[in-house]
């Protein structure tokens, strides 16, 4: 007598309200339970590992999670904070205490001395409270990239659910792109990607990187995408 019963296969596309499993299973992201029944709450791919079941969404907004590295655009400078667009349903706040090492006299200082409207920044999501107020920081010591204002380069927005594809298995895709295009690339978990070429011709390299990222977004459902892209980079460059 099995303790649980699965109603879908691994990697199957499921829709909201679809019954995934019954019994003693671990219901993870993208699911909800009623009694011992597990249902999907999004359109996505069922991912079954042992008795853990989750649904990987195929669409949807970016939901900030503490620890995420994001690329944001400063939208508004306020008295003691900056409002930053991180492509979440609501803008995030960056407080001076999470942005500047030194003390500043807020009465005397206009914060746009440090960051102005329109500036692009790399930041880490520090906290998300129950009403989705999101606090950013650019002072995290152990961040994977240098945080703060990003200068030069360009920004490409892709669907946030496709970010794992841009990174690739253990970072294979992003490593390949950085190497082949000789660009620095910062992939925000929010689907905003910052690209800056290390070598001339810079704008051409960056444009090619943008095209490659769009191509990843468009072909995200295909297998062996890293290899395909590596061998087609030259062709993309000619477009």
């Amino acid at each position, binding site marked *: 007598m099995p303790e649980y019963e699965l109603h879908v296969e691994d990697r*199957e*596309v499921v*829709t*909201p*309200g*679809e*019954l995934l499993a019954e019994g003693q299973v671990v219901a993870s992201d*993208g699911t*909800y339970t009623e009694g011992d029944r597990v*249902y999907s*709450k*999004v*359109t996505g791919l069922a991912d079954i590992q042992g008795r853990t079941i989750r649904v990987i*969404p*195929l*669409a*949807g*907004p970016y939901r900030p999670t503490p620890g995420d590295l994001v690329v944001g655009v400063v939208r508004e400078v306020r008295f003691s904070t900056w409002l930053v667009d991180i492509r979440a*349903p*609501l*803008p995030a706040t960056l407080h001076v205490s999470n942005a500047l090492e030194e003390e500043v006299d807020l009465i005397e200082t206009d914060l746009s001395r440090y960051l102005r409207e329109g500036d692009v920044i790399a930041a880490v999501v520090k906290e998300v409270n*129950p*009403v*989705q107020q999101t606090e950013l920081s650019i002072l995290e010591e152990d961040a994977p990239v240098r945080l703060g204002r990003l200068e030069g380069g360009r920004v490409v927005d892709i669907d946030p*659910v496709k970010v794992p594809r841009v990174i690739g298995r253990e970072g294979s895709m992003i490593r390949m792109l950085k190497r082949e295009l000789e660009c620095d690339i910062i992939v925000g978990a929010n689907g905003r990607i910052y690209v800056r070429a290390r070598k001339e011709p810079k704008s051409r390299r960056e444009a090619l990187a943008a095209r490659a990222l769009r191509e990843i977004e468009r072909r995200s*459902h295909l297998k062996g995408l890293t290899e395909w892209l590596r061998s087609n980079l030259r062709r993309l460059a000619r477009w």
Partner: protein
Amino acid sequence: MPEEEPERLISEDGLRLDGRKPDEMRPIKIRAGVLKRADGSAYVEVGANRIVAAVYGPRELHPRHKQKPDRAVVRFRYNMAPFSVDERKRPGPDRRSIEISKLSKEALEPAIFTEYYPRTAIDIFVEVLQADAGTRCAGITAASVALADAGIEMRDLVAACAAGKVDGHIVLDPMYYEDGHGEADVPLAMMPKEGEITLLQMDGDMTPEELKKAIRLAKKGCKIIYKEQRRALKRKYGEEE
């Protein structure tokens, strides 16, 4: 539809003007993700109805005093194109479309986990390009697919379908002529997983028994639509059942 006034809406052998049996639906077609700029979208055909739904959000809600601190606000706009009916429809919201917008919103809201998106708005737009009776139901059907296409977290899809009374017979999914010349119309929306009804109206007169029969029939129609909704979403990601 008929050139001349037909004497009866149901023939002696029990068939309707368009040849359907009383419990038969019109052909349905649903596509998910038809608009590029919307966060989610859907196109629905039910008989000669042609409807597009678009979903935007969850996104920041202005003015701020309309925000709910603990959940998203769902806004629904039902609109008929001026060319969607025989006689030109005066553009813009009227009494009827304001009513339909309100009840469509209320039909969909129970399915959405609004508490996951505090202080935001989820905007749903339904445009009727061609009307053939039952547009409010087809609009809800389309909007629900568009919501799922936008990746918004939901308990279930919402399927909607009408039943009606024509020449004393209870029929499923009345078409334009039956709606105009019949005795009653009963639109119904439900979350088929649990069979929860989120919209039920009755325009016209029916006995309690007839109403029960109409609800049973409309529920049956919703289940057929539900299957099509799910197929449309799966088809978008290349999985044909």
